[in-house]
């Protein structure tokens, strides 16, 4: 007896009217003849490239037969297609070593997301109303091409998050042909500061590579390299080696960060430095070391400015005990293989100075673990003040970037003449677009991607048919009335290959890689540090506000992946919505408990979200993971939670002009509303409080 029969019996007995939801028989839908090479039960593995962040991990995708239902006219058909079942790291790739982070694995759900755009569309309503009608490719392309003729130069702004590789180069060529400025990114998670610091101090183009696996004593400053900074998979692998991969030596990690990131959580010691005091910490340590040992490769001018620094003031700024700092300086100085890894996971107004100071500290220590990157072409993404650029622009192209979400640019978007989006989804910014020209999903496209800083190139060729009426980005751009040559993967990769590598081989194995090697030679001669600048007066806005790149959603682009929505947040264990993290003391003062709704207000706006009383949050520092709070981004993300970037005031890094999204002050108030934080593990202490929830 099955459930249906049992239910029938029960409903007869009770005489109830059956709510007959299970009575539907599957209609017989004809099955289309499948494409060649799809055999039931047979698996194939194809190399692919992960584009969920800029790290450029090579992956492999498991392809097997799957069935979907499509409509042709009035009729429905079942179609057996090659579908991707799983994405794993490419074992041949030294970046991923066959491993892959959570988000990379969930990229599959962006490919098969039920909310993907099915084909080109045209706006059918006011800006931002997100009403679109399907149109043909010809019509859509023509409408864009016709309008585009009237604009040139600064009037055109192209925002992309394409990593270095064929896509970025194609876009570059398109823009060159259009005589428009180079493409930009929105400035969150694109490591422009890290690039700039490496260029300034070493004269390198690209982000440095850190040899974590061979270091003995590592000081991390502001770089959440296990969470979301640079290439988390690469550094997690290195971290495993660093800890337990070498017989006899176990690496010791000290992490200085103004919030307990994943890296700080895994560190042996955490230095909870005040926000914006990272340069001060590094200079203070340098000063202590200079008292003990010679200046090494440190330029004299730099050594001189360190020696004259006011140590007591520096220590006061970072808020760490002097004794503790002296201990760390001593251990760094005496370690066989010390290494300082500085990054700007949360950008402050003086983050550039911290990165530069860290490079000098490595030089002072004689650290051998800073390796030069594979040089990037000059087209490396510039971000800078995108809002400013948007004001000048009339035409905006969107390729994966979401300025309405990241930069609160909805208003500027409304003022533009033409917005075209190439993304696969109707996101916050695409909602303002005039024309949607969805390009193939990354997993349906060919591409070559240069891993962040690391030597080599990852390559993928299409191995599953596009699901919908989409086109390759190169083809779309080529049909916008501008003559240029789209980049072909083979042509891009072939010249990069050494003699012992053939294109066929590279295509088969998903890329080729080479070890980074070389020495870090300081070429700059100057070190400056400044007090951090914060938006908002301390009297009015007593708390620091730090939005940070979340493990699940990165800069927000992962929010439409159901697996990531359900992944417990590593800090708060929150699912389907992210909380504001408040330290216990502040929470007590404001009578806030975990789950309570709070209003966070800055000079630029306010948001409402549930609170998480974070036992390891710095007193007076409120953090919030980025990712939720999309107005439009499909069924899994739309209208869920709050966007911390929406209340960030526009502060720019003094030295490099990058968006300092961690430099806003806020005030927090409790709201009287039913608690609403969904957590997988509400309990965060091993021995819960006696008798309490």
């Amino acid at each position, binding site marked *: *007896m*099955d*459930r249906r*029969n*049992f*239910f029938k019996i*029960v*409903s007869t*007995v*009770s*005489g*109830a009217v*059956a*709510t007959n*939801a*299970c009575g539907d028989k599957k209609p017989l839908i004809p099955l289309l003849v499948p494409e060649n090479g799809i055999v039931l039960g047979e698996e194939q593995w194809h190399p692919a490239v992960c584009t969920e962040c800029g790290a450029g991990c090579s992956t492999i995708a498991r392809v097997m037969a799957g069935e979907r239902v499509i409509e042709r006219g009035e009729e429905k058909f079942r179609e057996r297609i090659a579908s991707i079942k799983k994405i794993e790291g490419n074992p041949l790739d030294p970046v991923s070593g066959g491993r892959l982070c959570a988000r990379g694995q969930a990229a599959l759900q962006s490919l098969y997301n039920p909310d993907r755009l099915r084909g080109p569309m045209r706006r059918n309503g006011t800006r931002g109303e997100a009403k679109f009608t399907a149109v043909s490719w010809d019509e859509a392309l023509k409408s864009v091409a016709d309008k585009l003729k009237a604009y040139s130069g600064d009037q055109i702004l192209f925002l992309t998050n394409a990593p270095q590789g064929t896509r970025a180069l194609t876009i570059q060529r398109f823009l060159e042909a259009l005589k428009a400025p180079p493409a930009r990114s929105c400035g969150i998670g694109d490591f422009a500061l890290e690039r700039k610091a490496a260029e300034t101090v070493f004269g390198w183009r690209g982000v440095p590579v850190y040899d974590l696996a061979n270091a003995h004593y590592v000081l991390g400053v502001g770089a959440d390299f296990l969470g979301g900074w640079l290439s988390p998979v690469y550094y997690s692998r290195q971290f495993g080696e660093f800890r337990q991969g070498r017989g006899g030596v176990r690496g010791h990690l000290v992490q200085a960060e103004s919030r307990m990131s994943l890296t700080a959580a895994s560190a042996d010691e955490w230095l909870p430095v005040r926000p914006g005091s990272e340069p001060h910490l590094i200079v203070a340590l340098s000063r202590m070391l200079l008292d003990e040992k010679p200046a090494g490769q440190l330029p004299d001018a730099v050594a001189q400015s360190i020696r004259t620094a006011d140590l007591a003031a520096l220590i006061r700024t970072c808020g760490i005990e002097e004794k503790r700092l002296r201990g760390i300086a001593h251990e760094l100085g005496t370690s066989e293989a010390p290494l300082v890894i500085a990054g700007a996971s949360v950008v402050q107004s003086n983050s550039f100075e911290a990165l530069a100071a860290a490079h000098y500290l490595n030089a002072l220590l004689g650290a051998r673990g800073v390796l030069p990157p594979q040089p990037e072409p000059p087209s490396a993404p510039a971000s800078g003040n995108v809002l400013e650029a948007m004001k000048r622009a009339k035409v905006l192209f969107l390729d994966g970037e979401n300025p309405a979400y990241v930069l609160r640019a909805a208003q500027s978007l409304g003022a533009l003449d033409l917005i075209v989006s190439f993304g696969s989804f109707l996101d916050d910014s695409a909602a303002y677009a005039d024309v949607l020209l969805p390009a193939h999903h990354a997993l349906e496209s060919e591409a070559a991607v240069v891993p962040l800083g690391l030597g080599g190139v990852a390559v993928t060729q299409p191995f599953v048919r596009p699901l919908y009426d989409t086109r390759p980005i190169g083809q779309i751009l080529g049909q916008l009335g501008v003559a240029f040559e789209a980049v072909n993967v083979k042509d891009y990769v072939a010249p990069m290959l050494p003699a012992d590598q053939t294109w066929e081989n590279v295509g088969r194995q998903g890329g080729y890689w080479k070890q980074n090697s070389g020495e870090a030679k300081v070429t700059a001669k100057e070190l400056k540090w400044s007090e951090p600048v914060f938006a908002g007066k301390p009297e009015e806005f007593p708390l620091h506000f730090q939005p940070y790149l979340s493990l699940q959603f990165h800069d927000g682009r992962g929010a439409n992946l159901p697996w990531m929505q359900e992944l417990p947040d590593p800090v708060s264990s929150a699912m389907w919505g992210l909380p504001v993290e408040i330290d216990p003391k502040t929470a007590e003062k404001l009578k806030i408990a975990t789950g309570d709704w709070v209003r966070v207000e800055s000079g630029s706006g306010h948001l409402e979200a549930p609170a998480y009383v974070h036992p390891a949050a710095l007193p007076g520092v409120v953090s919030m993971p980025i990712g939720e709070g999309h107005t439009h981004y499909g069924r899994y993300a739309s209208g869920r939670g709050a966007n911390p970037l929406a209340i960030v005031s526009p502060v720019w890094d003094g030295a490099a002009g990058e968006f300092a999204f961690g430099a806003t002050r806020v005030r927090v108030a409790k709201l009287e509303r039913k608690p609403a934080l969904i957590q997988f*593990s*509400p*309990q965060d*202490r*091993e*021995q*819960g*409080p*006696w*008798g*309490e*929830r």
Partner: protein
Amino acid sequence: MDDVRRDLWRPLQGTSWRYLAVLLPLSMVTLWGLIAWGYQLDRGIGVANIRRPVFWAFYLVDFVFWIGISHAGTLISAILRLTEAEWRKPVTRAAEAITVFALMIGGMFPIIHLGRAWIFYWLIPYPNTRLLWPNFRSPLMWDLCAISTYLIGSSIFLFLPLIPDVAQLARHAKGWRRWVYRKLALGWTGSDREWHALERAMKLMAGIILAVAVSVHTVVAWDFSMAIAPMWHSTIFGPYFVVGAIFSGIAALILAMAVIRRTMHLEQYLTPHHFNNLAKLLLLMSLLWVYFTVSENLTVWYGNEPKEMMVFGARTRGTFAPYFWTMVVCNFFIPFVLLGIRKLRSIQTAIISSVTVLIGMWLERFIIIVPTLSRPRLAAAWGSYSPSWVEISITVATFATMVVLYLMFAKLFPIISIWEFKPHDRVPER
């Protein structure tokens, strides 16, 4: 026909509007419960608010509660029979009927709570074509065996002393009732041999049923105490559950008798004397219950084992404290004051105490099941629980069902054993 018989037969004849006024709304509630269950079967067990880690809640609470109530009867009547307490006579049938119906209701809950109720029969121990047996190591299997044995036993125990009465009724009834009574009378003629056999059978059954009843509730207790969950894994649970069962059983019996007394105008037969005796019994059980409750909690508190203390804390001063202390008040303080002070002891106070004891004992099962499950060993898995409308509906419906079944029984059979109360005229041995 004598007065006694007329009085006791009166309820069987005719149906008053008051009877229907009670029966019909309660039948609707029962029906609503069945609809809720149908909805649950259709949509999935998820419409109940159970979740990880509280995988068992209302349905299991109801299960233990009703199995507890079932001890009203059989156990009490069996004890009183064996001890030859003469005052028991008008009480026994009312008690035994409670047992059978409470068991029928309680026995449904293990099925209601299954994720896939439509294959409940996989639990029944018979070898299928693959010679696969159920797992006899599982306490749930013991449960199944114990409860079915108990149901059969208590049905017989109810039925045997009913035979002389239905034989009497068969002589006077008309229509379909006559047919029913005659079939049930099993050809009873009232000979001395039959009387003798009946009395011996009752003695024997009383002994057997006593053992079965004790073991049944012990086995129900073992569902919990065999598990290694904090505060479940306790040796006290067997006797504790048995005591609790008798306790709630007596309360149910007092209530049932009060209702019968009132609605069927049997004041003459169910006298304050009966209530007084039962009230004393209730008081005794209340004292026993508090003794066990203190033993259970004191040992945990004194032992101070962290995982157990989490549950203990949640019970006594955390989320579940209001329920815990209500339970203590209901099960101990109220009966202790109302029934312990002789001046206060009356039919009314016995009824009040019975109501609070039933509430308290339902809460006791809730307090045993839910706090333990919501505080598993690993704090990362802690959770909470509140019931859904489906669980509440089904729970409420079972109370209605109990009353409906009881009323229907009382309409068909004399709720007071006539022959015991007033011995039948014996047909002389030929």
